[in-house]
């Protein structure tokens, strides 16, 4: 038996072999390494996604904690930010006194992270009860206020003249964290 392979067939076979070689080279040189890199990248992405999920869970936990703290301490937080308004303060607390005057607010000192302002007061009261009511009221005021020594009570006829100093505490506006706090609030 004798096979007769035409010249045209040889060309076709040669082309097929060349094509196969190109396909194999392309597959081993590019596709297979790319696929491996793809699988590695997918695995890495999954790992990072898991880590990000963990961070997100931590973020949610801390955020909830912050929100609940802000809610619980809303009065204190806003009181430390409030600007002391002498007119408003006098108007609010005058009912406890026969007369009630405040000196001008002046910068006093720095207490940890709070700026302390001082204001002197002089007042006339019918009985010490007015002063007790005032002290109860100060703890609910729009600012954080501490009544300080010296406190002087002097009889003035049927009235008591009292004078004392108050310290108004304001969170230092230079604190960067305060701005961040505002951003986190809803």
């Amino acid at each position: 038996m004798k096979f007769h392979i035409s010249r045209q067939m040889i060309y076709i076979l040669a082309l097929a072999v060349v094509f196969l070689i190109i396909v194999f080279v392309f597959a081993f040189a590019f596709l297979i390494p790319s696929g491996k890199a793809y699988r590695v990248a997918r695995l890495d992405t999954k790992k990072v996604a898991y880590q990000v999920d963990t961070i997100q869970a931590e973020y949610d936990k801390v955020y909830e904690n912050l929100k609940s703290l802000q809610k619980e301490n809303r009065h204190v937080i806003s009181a430390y930010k409030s600007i002391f308004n002498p007119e408003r303060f006098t108007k609010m607390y005058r009912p406890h006194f026969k007369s009630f005057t405040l000196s001008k607010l002046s910068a006093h000192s720095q207490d940890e992270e709070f700026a302390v302002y001082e204001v002197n007061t002089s007042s006339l009261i019918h009985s010490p009860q007015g002063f007790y009511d005032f002290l109860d009221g100060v703890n609910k005021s729009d600012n954080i206020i501490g009544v300080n020594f010296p406190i002087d009570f002097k009889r003035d006829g049927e009235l008591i003249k009292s004078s004392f100093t108050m310290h108004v505490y304001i969170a230092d506006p230079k604190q960067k964290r305060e701005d961040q706090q505002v951003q986190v609030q809803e």
Partner: protein
Amino acid sequence: MMYESNMQELLTKGETLKEDIVSMHEDIAFIKIQRRHAEGIYTENTVLKESIHNLFDLVPEKITLSQALLKEDELVLYGVTPSKEVYEFLLQAPLRSIFHRSYTSYYAMPNGWYSFVSKNYLDRPVQ
């Protein structure tokens, strides 16, 4: 390419979240500082009120105060008493139980009563 951009997004998100967590921890710490500080101030005001209340409750009807000066570690009382004994038994004794040192000066008045100046001191322990 898609995974690379996803990865980059995730890494950026992770970094942002971490920064936010640090910032929120700072906020939480600051709120706790504010709360502790405010509670301290409120307590001091309440203690002050109770102290003044107790002081005025301490003064018997027979003795009339004309002035009371309260300082951090010092109390100065000015007033009139029908006799030195009344003052000593009814006011000085309780004051001595509160303060470490008490000094009283009496000044005789034309009507037989005495005006007095009572200085009372608390000695703070040396740190």
